C-alpha cells in the first residue's frame, strides 16, 4: 500500500464532523473502535467506516495488540498537512505584512503633505 500522503483525501476526510471528532479524540491518545464509538450515537460499524476513510487519507494508523486494534493519529500524515497549512498561513500573513508596509507609506506621505 502506498504511504504517499494525499492532501486532497486528507482534507476531504476532514469535511465530516464525526471524523473531525474522532481525530480530536485520537489527538489525546490511541483508542479502539469501541472506545471511539462510546461518545457517539452511532454504531461501531459506522465508526469503522469513518476510520477506514481516515486511514486511507493517511491521517490514522492501526496497531495490532492481541485481539485489539487500537488506532492513533498518523504522525507523518498530520505533519504533512500541518506543513501545508503553515505554508498557506504564511502566504496569507505575508499579504498583511505587505499591507502594513503600504499603510506605513501612506501615513508618511500624508505627513509629508502637511509639512
Amino acid at each position, binding site marked *: 500500500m502506498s504511504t504517499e500522503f494525499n*492532501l486532497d483525501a486528507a*482534507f*476531504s476526510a*476532514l*469535511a465530516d*464532523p464525526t471524523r*473531525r*471528532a474522532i*481525530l*480530536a479524540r485520537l*489527538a489525546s491518545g490511541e483508542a479502539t473502535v469501541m472506545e471511539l464509538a462510546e461518545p457517539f450515537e452511532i454504531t461501531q460499524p459506522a465508526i469503522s467506516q469513518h476510520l477506514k476513510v481516515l486511514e486511507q487519507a493517511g491521517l490514522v494508523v492501526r496497531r495490532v495488540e492481541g485481539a485489539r486494534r487500537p488506532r492513533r*493519529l498518523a504522525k507523518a500524515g*498530520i*505533519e504533512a*498537512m*500541518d506543513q*501545508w*497549512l*503553515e*505554508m*498557506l*498561513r*504564511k*502566504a*496569507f*500573513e*505575508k*499579504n*498583511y505584512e*505587505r*499591507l*502594513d*508596509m*503600504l*499603510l*506605513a507609506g*501612506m*501615513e508618511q506621505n500624508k505627513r509629508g503633505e502637511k509639512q
Partner: protein
Amino acid sequence: MSKMTLKTEGDTHVIVTRRFAAKPEAVYRAHVEPEMIQKWMLGPEGWTMPVCINEARPGGKIRFEWANGKGQGFYLTGEYVELKPYSRIVHVERMHLPDPTPDNHVETRFEVDGTGTLMTVRMTLPDSQTRAAMLATGMEKGMEDSYARLEGML
C-alpha cells in the same frame, strides 16, 4: 508579532481578525483601490497581480488575476453587495482554479482600535465541505502544537 487570528464559527463561517497601525480609512482604501490592492494582495513571494478590476460600488465587478512569471496563474471573480466607507464591505467571491469554487460571501469590517484599526473578515461558505476545502487552500489556526492545531480546526 502575531496579529492575525483565524477561527471557525458554526459549520460554515470562517472569521479572520487582524490589527493594523493605520486608521480605518487607510485600511479600507487599501481594500478597494486597485493600484493599492495590486501592491499587497499577492500571496506567496514571487507572485504578482497583473490584472486588478475592482469596481467598488454595489453590483460592481471584481476580477483579480495572479501570475508567478513561470506560466502559472489563477484568478478570482466577485461582485460587491454593499460598501460603507470606511467601515464595512460586503462582497461575494469565488476562485477559479480554473473551475470556480463555491461562492464565498464575505463581510469585512474596519473598526477604530486605539490609534489603529481592527479588521474583521467574516466569510460564509455554502456548506461545511466547502469550508474544509477552503481551510485547506487558504489558512489555518495559529496554534503552536501540531496536534493542537489539528484539534483546533475541529
